[in-house]
């Protein structure tokens, strides 16, 4: 008995010593970089001749507020947005309009060059955060896109993808698909700590989990939206099937190994903006819940903590409005799976 007791004590001491050694690493070595885009006006809109305005109202406010928030927390931020007056802003400064400064608007080509420039300053220990607010769409093959500047054309085109924008159509070649964004991230950003937040319609399609089963369906934006979800036998069966067929590569979305994605809504849902919040719905709750988001009280806010509090806000506030339910504008923010989480703040 004595030997057994001594063995237990020695084992506990060894475990504690190893633990202390491993915890010696610090978060202070992690430099944080952010790229923030917002697209309010996609086209210079002429109300006298065009009754099918594809432009939004609040993505520029979303991007401005998000860029300021991140900069305030020590991020090195690169930002671009286009406002409701078609003015192009770079790092918070107006540089012209879409008529004369479109080359500096947040297009797909600019996205790649911005990522390349940021990536050249980073090392493998750093964190990269990408935020986009604007339109999102999908195509018949199941790919989802976010629509940067240049992604919307003013007339129907045969090769375009439907954007749900009256007579405006999105051009797949100048939109950014889930697969393309995943490839840009791995090509240009030399760290595995990559986080993407998309406040766009259908953005849940950017999540490419291959192991986890989300018990919230892709499309909950109906008047009969469930307010609670539960695990069923089919959830367990799906989880076992995912384990049996597991691959770290996702053919439909960005796998957790490439980036953690926080989306405003599911792959079959709309993401909405509203005058009441002055922002996109999810962005409003991200901006306003951060101060309370250290849920476990460890002094830092992680992706999951921030996401879960914003999701709770969307659920309890926006999704509880009767007209939101009636017209099918309910939305459920989603997050990637994977074993790790990253400290954002």
């Amino acid at each position: 008995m004595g030997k057994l007791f001594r063995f237990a004590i020695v084992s506990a001491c060894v475990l504690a010593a190893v633990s202390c050694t491993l915890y010696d690493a610090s978060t202070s070595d992690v430099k944080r970089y952010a790229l923030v885009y917002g697209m309010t006006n996609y086209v210079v809109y002429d109300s006298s001749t065009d009754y099918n305005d594809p432009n939004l109202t609040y993505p520029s406010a979303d991007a401005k507020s998000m860029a300021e928030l991140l900069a305030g927390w020590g991020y090195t931020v690169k930002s671009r947005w286009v406002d409701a007056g078609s003015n192009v802003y770079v790092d918070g400064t107006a540089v012209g309009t879409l008529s004369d400064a479109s080359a500096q608007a947040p297009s797909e080509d600019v996205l790649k060059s911005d990522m390349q420039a940021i990536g050249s300053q980073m090392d493998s220990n750093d964190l990269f955060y990408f935020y986009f607010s604007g339109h999102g769409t999908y195509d018949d093959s199941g790919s989802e896109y976010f629509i940067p500047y240049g992604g919307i054309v003013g007339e129907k085109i045969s090769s375009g993808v439907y954007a749900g924008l009256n007579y405006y159509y999105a051009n797949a070649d100048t939109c950014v698909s889930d697969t393309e964004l995943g490839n840009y991230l791995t090509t240009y950003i030399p760290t595995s700590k990559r986080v993407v937040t998309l406040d766009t319609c259908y953005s849940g399609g950017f999540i490419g989990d291959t192991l986890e089963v989300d018990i919230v369906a892709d499309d909950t934006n109906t008047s009969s939206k469930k307010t609670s979800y539960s695990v069923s036998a089919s959830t367990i069966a799906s989880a076992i099937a995912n384990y049996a067929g597991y691959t770290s590569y996702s053919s439909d979305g960005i796998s957790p190994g490439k980036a953690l994605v926080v989306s405003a809504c599911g792959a079959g849902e709309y993401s909405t903006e509203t005058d009441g919040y002055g922002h996109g719905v999810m962005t409003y709750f991200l901006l306003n819940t951060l101060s309370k988001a250290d849920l476990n009280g460890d002094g830092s806010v992680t992706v999951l903590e921030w996401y879960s509090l914003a999701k709770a806000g969307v659920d309890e506030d926006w999704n509880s409005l009767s007209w939101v339910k009636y017209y099918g504008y309910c939305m459920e923010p989603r997050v990637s799976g994977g074993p790790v989480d990253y400290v954002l703040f």
Partner: protein
Amino acid sequence: MRRLVLILPALFLAGSLSALSVGLGGLGSAQFGASEGFDPKFQFGGGGSLMVAFPVLGWLDVRADLDFFGLMSSDAAGGYLYRGYGCSALALGAYASVPFDTLKGIGKLEYGGGLAVAGDFAGTTYTTLYWFYPEVRAEGFLDFRPDFLANTHCILYVPLRWQLRADMSYCFSTGLGLRVAYSFGED
């Protein structure tokens, strides 16, 4: 012949059932694991379990456990952490024990160990995401049968568990648990 195939296991089962043990326990555990591209870290947690054991031989039991446990997220050193999760697990294993000592007027001691396999169904903290992994378990235990509580076992156990998680390069856990069991049909 076909009847014999059915009757023999039924008789064995009936005999086993008359001497089965049921119990419940609690476990504090430490998990150590790493995912590709990240250094290993510890996660700590605990949980409870329900068990039922059938004697196969005098020294060998077949045991089923239903566990419920939770793990906190790891520390955030390096700007990352391993996610916390809650889990339910169903395990089936074989456990052997041998007499160790008799404490006069107090009770009897046995020690033993066993091997088991388990299926774990986990849900990530703060999310609606669920996932599965199998697990290989080994366990060493010390079984105290007090004289003043008939048919009762107080079992101190140390599990070693290898989580075969698809999303981790490796993942092991150990801990210290206490289980109280009651054996039917024991004298």
